[in-house]
């Protein structure tokens, strides 16, 4: 009961934060001068009509209520004005999400097992050369910004050797779950995976190394378990408590994609859409994507926070 109350409280707080953030964004965007509609045949009339319907010429407060009304009743963010002119913002967004999700999913599926494996290995070989080697690599991949090694990957895999194509395959010609699509996305996938592998590896190593020196592990060994049994049954299960929420967080981040990687490898995902909307000053897209990204961030944080309590019953939620 206490848990349920805590969860509901957190969700309500999150919704409140979300609405406030959205209000701030909305007002800040509306304070900017309205961009002119580029001449595009009959689209211009369509957009002007839509602007009228959304109250673009009315005070900001009226626009604000119309915005929420349109959004909640019809899921309507308006039309693209500078990009995808005259097309529904929501529809375009939904079209783009699969690209981001595919790349992210592949990269996580590669990164999570590898990261945990390297982390366990490093922890077991603590302070030996294997550990130092892995830790050094991890240090490099955590510190170096992802765009730097994305360039390196691109240079070697795409230009020098020519093994992989420069851009992702189009969804019209290749299905999403196929070898060809995977191959075309591979450079992006591994560029993205590097930082996840490094982060997970470091975290796993630190957690496991701490658990390995604890008393209960000594007890487990004393009562006759082999080292392998002790590690798998006792050490790993305890070390996993903080690791699992981290992986969970990664999975929620899937939806958002990575802005940088999508730009470098020209993946037409939602991150690339966001960047274009900022570059071209398409405020309808910008607002919609703001809402999308903020929501992902908030929900992700919330789920990660709450998951600690669900994963480990010893952690009592809502207590100080």
């Amino acid at each position: 009961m206490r848990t349920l109350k805590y969860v509901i409280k957190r969700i309500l707080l999150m919704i409140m934060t979300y609405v406030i953030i959205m209000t701030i964004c909305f007002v800040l965007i509306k304070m900017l001068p309205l961009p002119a509609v580029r001449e595009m045949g009959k689209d211009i009339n369509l957009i002007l009509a839509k602007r009228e319907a959304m109250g673009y010429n009315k005070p900001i407060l009226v626009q604000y209520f119309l915005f929420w009304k349109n959004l909640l009743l019809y899921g309507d963010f308006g039309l693209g004005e500078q990009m995808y002119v005259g097309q529904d913002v929501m529809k375009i967004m939904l079209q783009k999400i699969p690209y981001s999700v595919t790349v992210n999913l592949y990269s996580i599926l590669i990164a999570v097992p590898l990261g945990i494996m390297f982390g366990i290995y490093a922890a077991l070989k603590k302070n030996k050369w294997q550990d130092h080697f892995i830790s050094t690599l991890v240090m490099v991949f955590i510190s170096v910004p992802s765009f730097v090694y994305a360039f390196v990957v691109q240079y070697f895999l795409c230009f020098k050797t020519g093994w992989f194509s420069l851009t992702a395959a189009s969804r019209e010609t290749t299905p999403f779950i196929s070898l060809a699509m995977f191959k075309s996305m591979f450079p992006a996938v591994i560029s993205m995976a590097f930082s996840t592998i490094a982060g997970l590896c470091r975290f796993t190593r630190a957690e496991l190394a701490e658990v390995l020196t604890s008393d209960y592990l000594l007890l487990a060994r004393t009562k006759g378990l082999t080292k392998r049994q002790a590690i798998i049954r006792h050490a790993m299960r305890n070390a996993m408590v903080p690791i699992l929420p981290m992986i969970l967080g990664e999975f929620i981040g899937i939806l958002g994609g990575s802005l940088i990687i999508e730009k470098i490898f020209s993946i037409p995902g939602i991150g690339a859409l966001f960047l274009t909307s900022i570059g071209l000053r398409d405020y309808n897209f910008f607002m919609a994507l703001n809402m999308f990204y903020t929501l992902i961030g908030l929900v992700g944080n919330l789920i990660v926070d709450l998951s600690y309590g669900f994963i480990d019953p010893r952690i009592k939620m809502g207590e100080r």
Partner: protein
Amino acid sequence: MEKKMKFDNIPVEKFQFARRDNDVILDKKFSTKPVGYFKDCMRRFRKNKSSVIAAYIILLLFLFALIVPFVSHYNVSFRDGYYKLAPPKFAPLAFLGWDGCTDRTEGQAGYDYYKSIGVEYGSSSVKKVKNVKTDETTGKPFYTIYVDDYEKVGFVYVDLSEKEYNALKEYQNKTKIQVAYPIPENYKTNFLAVNGANLWYELADNTPSTSGASKYHDDNGDPIYKAAYRTSKKETSAKYDSLKLAEDKGGEDGKSWYVYAVKNQSGYRMRVLYKEYYMYQNGFYPEHIFGTNQDGQDLFACMAVGARVSFLISLSVVLVVIPFGLCYGAIEGYYGGAIDLFLERISDIIYGIPLIVVAALCNMHLLKKIGPVLTTWLIFIIVDWLGIAARVRTQFYRFKGQEYVLAARTLGASDKRLIFRHILPNSLGTIITGTILIIPGVISSEIMFAYLGIVSFQTSNIISMGTLLSQGESYLATYPHILLFPACYIALLEIAFNLFGNGLRDAFNPSLRGADE
């Protein structure tokens, strides 16, 4: 109490000083200086070799950013249209391949063309012929040649006013360095071609779209260059009375002299050796240690300016963010309750907005008003105090209930004194290390925003590393150096900062004391 009263009236004579006579202290006096918290931290930090090296690397990179703009010939606004995309050249290390040369594969025409550049002053832009292959179907040769990209610029046509023309002649007379060279016969047709001024010899094909094949070849297929200069009967045509080529002796009969300048409406058109002309104009020869980008900007200088911007932004952000975060976190943590709840909601809200959205909104509202550097600075000011505040808050929650705080409060210490004198110093270690790690974060985000074009650095005298990266991106396949050097600098800086920060964190963490020994 009563017992104590009894001693009230002991006469003074009954007291005597202990060991007044010889003043010897039997305790051992410490001859070493006391080791305080910070000194202990520094001592432990110095034991961590990698962090110390990282600190020196940071210093080196910082000095690079600081000094290079003063020393370098170039700055961000220096652009040269002829030395675009020039490869890196650094004369003292030329033997390592840092010589500004690139490999090219050319047919006969291209080979003749590159070989011809520099022949007039006893050199050639082709430094080495690495390989000659014969195409099987056509039977024509293909050369793999090692071309000096600086020399291959060769000659260009320039239009000078009367005054500039005289000044150039005077410069030549004074320094005895030949800048102007004779104008070829075909200059009217080839004037508009990019390489027009380099086609000074008799061509196999004299159409305007000529690609440079020489008319004559010896038995090995090597070109024989026969000069095809324009001639005039006057020795000083267009009033040219300065240095001339050695073979320019008026032909056989002393009647046809080479033409060095042609008069036109606005002044004189000349054919100049560009590297000498460059020297004449700028006072130094072209040499780009890290090469140039597609605008002809010197990467070495641009990187230093970009690094300056990064350092400036990150350090000034830290300077503002620390005091603010400290006070905010201290108030939250110390007072707790409703104040904490309210302040936490504010930081929750700011924390909830993705950084990229903050950046985009700041850019849209402020870029035109306050410029890119201040905009970027503001973005990080808005966001980066959150981490410090949260850290300080938890430290305050930890310490504020402890007995020594209670004791101080009982003695009548004010809130201000409790916060700043009693609780804050305890959490200083974690705060310091936390803030060190803010710097690399700010630098990489700043570069990322500039790279993604969210904050645009389009002013003439300031550039960001990210702008350099996005410029180099499209030349990754052909001219990787444009991207390579900034990327390496960033990578090195980030690794060094993280190593340094981690070393500092371990040193400042009292619980790790003695753990590694």
